[in-house]
């Protein structure tokens, strides 16, 4: 009995393997659809393993209803970037993928330009994954950074309006502190939450998002009066006034989500992705608010706008159907709502209540600049961990000396690499 079962099993395994092989060859022999007709098979390689078998099933049904000639399949993998790169180097990879981390100049080798997809309106992040005027990636959605706050905690502290200027923000912190609430959860110890102070807030202070790249042009990228010094002085001020956790060297990320949910902590300065996590930790969704961080006293609401993964099309795959699929994902699927993104289409309002609230402050968005390899190279050669520098800046008795030390390393790395002014 056992033996025959094994035999049966191995036959099944062999058959599936064989059919898989033949499936592959069929796919390859199929014309790539150069005639522009939307039909045939397409495969979308995704990182959302959680959506397989539920949301994606529904997407498949709806998409195939619209394009009856197309057979849409989803394949979900973990460790997305590394796995995709291996498959790309083998020359055979799915029709629709998310762009891996390559430099833009390498995109034409693998991907089809997407300029001819006609969307109903202007889209965000058009230039970000483009090379020589051709666009190779379309963002699946955007996210932003701002203050996530507990509305009850604000009400308890007697804050009626969300702060619009930095002065008002400090006043709100003071009120929270007076009523026994920790104003801002920094999660200082964990280091990564400080990345917003390195990448996002300097964009708001300097009103330009290419500050990380511009570091490559100078020997002194960190000064007290440029965007970094100013931004980090804000953290330092909040720390010195006691508006952060009682002991910033002993913070607990998991606990902080619960504390925000219960109102023990008042605010986070993080991306909108944290909203759902706070809700998962027991907060009433109506009790969680989101507003732009007032980095200065201008009263103009400003926020960075960061892209999520970019859709791309395998240039040797079924290009027309793949493009139709991307168009459909952006316009009709409702994925941005499901994922809690800011929609890629500029004139579409985000569905997440908190994002709608955020946008109601008439926010001026700063789209990120294409990262430059030169600045990254110098940073690596200088062995510079910017979040660690923020920590040092805040804790040190002499912040200017910290910047001086970092600049020294930067200048040395820059000359070692032979980068000219």
């Amino acid at each position, binding site marked *: 009995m056992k033996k025959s079962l094994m035999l049966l099993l191995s036959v099944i395994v062999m058959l599936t393997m064989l059919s898989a092989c033949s499936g592959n060859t069929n796919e390859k022999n199929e014309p790539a659809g150069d005639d522009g007709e939307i039909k045939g098979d397409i495969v979308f390689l995704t990182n959302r393993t959680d959506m397989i078998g539920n949301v994606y099933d529904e997407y498949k049904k709806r998409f195939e209803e619209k394009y009856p000639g197309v057979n849409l399949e989803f394949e979900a993998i973990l460790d997305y970037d590394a796995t995709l790169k291996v498959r790309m180097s083998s020359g055979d990879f799915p029709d629709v993928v998310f762009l891996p981390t390559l430099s833009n100049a390498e995109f034409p080798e693998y991907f089809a330009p997407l300029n001819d997809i006609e969307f109903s309106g202007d889209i965000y992040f058009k230039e970000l994954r483009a090379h020589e005027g051709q666009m190779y990636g379309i963002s699946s959605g955007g996210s932003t950074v701002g203050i996530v706050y507990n509305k009850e905690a604000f009400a308890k502290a007697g804050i009626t309006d969300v702060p619009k200027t930095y002065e008002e923000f400090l006043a709100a912190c003071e009120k929270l502190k007076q009523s026994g609430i920790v104003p801002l959860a920094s999660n200082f*110890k*964990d*280091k990564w939450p400080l990345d917003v102070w390195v990448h996002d807030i300097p964009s708001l202070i300097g009103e330009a998002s290419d500050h990380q790249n511009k570091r490559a042009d100078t020997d002194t990228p960190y000064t007290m009066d440029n965007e970094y010094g100013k931004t980090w002085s804000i953290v330092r001020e909040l720390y010195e006034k006691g508006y952060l*956790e*009682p*002991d*910033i*060297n*002993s913070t*607990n990320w998991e*606990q902080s989500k619960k504390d925000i949910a219960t109102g023990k902590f008042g605010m986070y300065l993080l991306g909108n992705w944290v909203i759902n996590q706070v809700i998962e930790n027991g907060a009433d969704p109506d009790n969680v608010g989101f507003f732009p961080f007032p980095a200065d006293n201008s009263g103009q609401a400003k926020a960075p706008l960061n892209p999520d993964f970019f859709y791309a099309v395998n240039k040797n795959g079924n290009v027309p159907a793949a493009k139709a699929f991307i168009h459909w994902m952006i316009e009709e699927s409702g994925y941005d709502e499901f994922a809690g993104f800011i929609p890629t289409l500029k004139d579409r309002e985000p569905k997440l209540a908190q994002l709608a609230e955020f946008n109601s402050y008439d926010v001026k968005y700063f789209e990120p600049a294409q990262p430059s390899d030169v600045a990254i190279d110098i*940073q*690596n*050669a200088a*062995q510079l*961990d910017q979040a*660690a520098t923020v*920590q*040092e800046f805040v*804790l*040190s008795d002499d912040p200017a000396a910290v910047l001086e030390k970092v600049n020294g*390393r930067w200048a040395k790395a820059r000359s070692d690499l032979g980068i000219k002014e």
Partner: protein
Amino acid sequence: MLSKLSFQTQKKVILICFITIPLLLLFTFAYYPALELLRLSFMKWNGVSANKEWIGFANYVEVFSNPDIFGVFKHNFAYFVVGIIQNMLALFFAVILNTKLRGRNGFRLLLFLPYILNGVAVAYLFGYVYDTTNGSLNALLGSLGFEQLSQTSWLGNKDFVNYTLASVGLWRFMGFNMVIYLGALQSIPSDLYEAASIDGANAWQKFSKITLPNIYKIIELNLFLTVTGALEVFDLPFVLTKGGPAGASETFVMKIIETAFQFNNYGLASAMSVVLLLFVVIVLSIQRYLLSRGDD
């Protein structure tokens, strides 16, 4: 087929067959990577690109001339100090638990148990113990009435953060050292002690004149483990402090990982690894020299 060969040849064939597989495994997984590490330490490589540039001793010069890299070794001092205390405690408990104490197996188990726990789990656990505001240690101190002391930031003070971390190591590895000492103590023949008792020796004399000389080699072994452990600490600061506050608890191994995987400088990281290896060898040679004087 083999039966036609002489006994000597058969013996050789068997020996070679048996030794090939372990040697092959040893070379592929230990010696080859070690040699590759040595080779990489003379190169400039970002971990991805196909070309590796030979730069001679530049990486080594960087390791020794950059105080940011070599300076972190002073953080390991705390682990040495606590490691010595750990060994004394372990020996103390071993001697006590080697007597006919009631429930000694239970005590042995209790002291050894922390060693079985996974290192990262231990680090997480102590994250809750040492937390300043919600931590159990400060709660205990507070309820005992030490108001000032219960405000201590155990992991946030750059003066003693390394001692805090090392104390976790003490809790974890003391039982392991103790078990090794216990094993050595049990191998000392009991007639030595009986003879000493008849001659009128007291407990201290028995310990210093019989026990210590007999377990000398084992003390050396335990110190060896402690010293290498102290030089290669990684998991505790990595999980508990991320090297903070402001780099005060960063260790050399953390620095190596950061160099390789964050700054993509595999050459320098390899050189640092080689330096760490040499450092361990040097420190252990000194230790051996000091301990074995007059012995051989």
